[in-house]
């Protein structure tokens, strides 16, 4: 130990306070993107294709933009798993083409997404895009997509406007819209659970869209919303809101809560003694493995309107679940289904049109029908949004939490235009 190594410390605390404050704001601003790693992996083909001459054997390059860092990481991972499962089942070929996937991480940030989009389209020259998670990202990508005329299969972003005011011939949604997710179960809840509802949704566009759709549908079904609150996205502690619920004594609570917020919400709902006392209902997230898995027993008894649950009885679903479990050693969730269906939709469109050119693809994508693990899905030519069944499910405890189907709301179709307010 040398004496000279004694630390010399500048006592300039002012500078440090300044530095700290600046850092804090930077951190707050970018708290969504906790790391900057770009998640680029290339799926290498197992079989080298030899015939390169003909146009229909050129490889198909798919660019995938998802949010691999931050709150939406689990959703993105699930979509990626679903996509890869499908292509693996098809040996990474469509017809004579081999399939390549390029992944990019948009960190749920529209600016980053635009940069990654340019990278995929300009440098990588991808043929078709899959993504994004966040509605703000799809809003940012919409105009460049129209300009570049490149097809985007929307695997998750649920913004209503993608089907209404900002509809594009190049964007097709396989998942669901906020309008569908908010309104599908409302009539059932009003009829079978109760007439007064307390609505909770995160304070960002999707939260408000789901809540608005629910409120409109619930009131149309003769219900009354006593109060609606919007905690900020990423709320740690729902205690204040749960206390308000307890004192408002509604017949039911309708809560839109996603990702980690959802898990915390469900657990705290139990801790504050509301589980079993005031029925908890919600959109599809509350009846999905991604929340019910980690939340465990606290998720028991929740009613949700789901588009997919393991209990849906059809061959495609059974095969999907078995293959997913065999490959990933865990249960799939609704987002893995969306990833799987995105891959399936691309496969069908390419086969049907016999081309990978956007102009040929969009001719077959409008009104296309495919066999999803959800059941038969048709992409509505009027909104480019899927027409699909919603299932009213209840979380029951059986060797973990599973969903029991109580009722089916058939063919939930988005209106062609935004409902008048």
């Amino acid at each position, binding site marked *: *130990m040398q004496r000279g190594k*004694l*630390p*010399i*410390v*500048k*006592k300039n*605390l*002012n*500078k*440090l*306070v300044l*530095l*700290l*404050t600046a*850092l*804090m704001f930077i*951190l*707050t601003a970018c*708290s*969504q993107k*906790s*790391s*900057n790693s770009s998640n680029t992996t290339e799926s290498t083909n197992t079989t080298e294709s030899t015939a390169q001459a003909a146009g229909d054997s050129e490889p198909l390059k798919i660019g995938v933009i998802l949010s*691999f*860092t*931050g*709150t939406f*990481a*689990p959703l*993105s*991972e699930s979509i990626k798993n679903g996509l890869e499962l499908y292509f693996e089942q098809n040996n990474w070929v469509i017809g004579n083409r081999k399939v390549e996937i390029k992944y990019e991480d948009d960190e749920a940030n529209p600016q980053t997404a635009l940069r990654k989009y340019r990278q995929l389209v300009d440098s990588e020259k991808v043929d078709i895009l899959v993504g994004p998670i966040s509605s703000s990202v799809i809003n940012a990508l919409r105009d460049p997509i129209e300009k570049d005329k490149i097809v985007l299969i929307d695997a998750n972003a649920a913004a209503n406007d993608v089907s209404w005011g900002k509809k594009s011939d190049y964007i097709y949604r396989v998942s669901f819209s906020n309008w569908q997710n908010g309104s599908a179960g409302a009539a059932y809840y009003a009829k079978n659970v109760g007439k007064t509802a307390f609505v909770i949704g995160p*304070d960002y566009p999707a939260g408000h869209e789901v809540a608005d759709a629910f409120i409109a549908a619930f009131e149309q079904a003769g219900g009354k919303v006593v109060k609606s*609150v*919007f*905690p*900020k996205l990423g709320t*740690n*502690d729902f*205690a*204040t*809101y749960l*206390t*308000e619920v*307890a*004192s408002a004594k509604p017949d039911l609570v309708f809560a839109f809560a996603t*990702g*980690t917020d959802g*898990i*915390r919400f469900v*657990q*705290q709902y139990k*801790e*504050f*003694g*509301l589980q079993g006392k005031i029925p908890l209902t919600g959109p599809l997230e509350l009846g999905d493995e*991604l929340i019910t*898995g*980690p939340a*465990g027993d606290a998720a028991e008894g929740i009613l949700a309107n789901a588009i997919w649950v393991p209990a849906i009885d059809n061959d495609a679903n059974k095969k999907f679940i078995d293959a997913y479990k065999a490959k990933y050693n865990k249960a799939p969730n609704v987002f893995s289904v969306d990833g799987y269906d995105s891959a399936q939709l691309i496969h069908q469109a390419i086969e049907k049109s016999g081309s990978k050119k956007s102009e040929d693809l969009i001719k077959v994508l409008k009104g296309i029908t495919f066999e999803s693990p959800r059941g038969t899905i048709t992409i509505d030519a009027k909104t480019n949004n899927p027409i699909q069944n919603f299932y009213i499910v209840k979380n029951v405890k059986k060797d973990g939490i599973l969903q029991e189907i109580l009722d089916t709301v058939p063919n939930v179709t988005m209106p062609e235009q935004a409902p008048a307010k």
Partner: protein
Amino acid sequence: MDLSILFVQIITGLAYGMLLFMIAAGLTIIFGLLSVVNLAHGALFMIGGYFTFTFINQHLNFWLALLISVILLAILGMLIERFLLNRMYGKELEQVLLTFGLIFIFTDLVKWIWGSSPKSISIPPLLDASLTIGVVTFPVYRLFVVVVGCAVALLLWYIESRTRIGAIVRAGVDDRHMLSSLGINFKLVFAGVFAFGAGMAGLSGGLGAPILGLYSGMDNDVLILSLVIVVIGGLKTWKGAFIGAILVGMVDTLGQVWFPSFSMVLIFALMVFILLIKPSGLFGKGVDA
């Protein structure tokens, strides 16, 4: 508003504040002696939570799992101090870069080992109960967090003012050159203090996990709030962190009740306000000393 509801909100705010206090205390103790702003403190908090989660999954009970993760975190802290940080004393920018870089390493490691799907820990059976106050029900676990927070504050006070270690640390905060000329092994003291701070992060991570859940990105959420607390309370003093944390917890909770859309802004407004009247923070000592 019903009185019982107000009471519950206050307890909620206190519980949240106490959790933040335990996080911020580690940060400020390290800063006090080592003059290092450990930006990786949030990441250590996160790792503490994930460790506890892992040990519980190995069928250890909650308390044992918590204890082991606190010890492991202290060891990790010791390693960080001995092998990385000790090269950077006195170089503020390098420290910021180092600890900021550690955040990336730790968050990616966590994602690599535990995956990106959120995890959760159930409340230990002993405390898995609810109290009913008026019309509302309140989980006992949060009361327990308040009690632990107060106990930690008492312990810190005792160590600081009544023990030899406390005296050494206090002396080091005031004048570290003098400390080493008194024949005290400052390397050991520094490593020990950093380990203690890291252990505190581990403790709060384990205790907080049943309330906050575990997810990648949680480190950032708490780091921002603990930095706010440290700035409000005053650098170098855990007492400041104590008051600062209670203030932030209260403002956050009651803000959600009365001004639901502004609760985050309120916290920063509070910080700006306090810095305006007292630039060194509530308990900060001489800024330009």
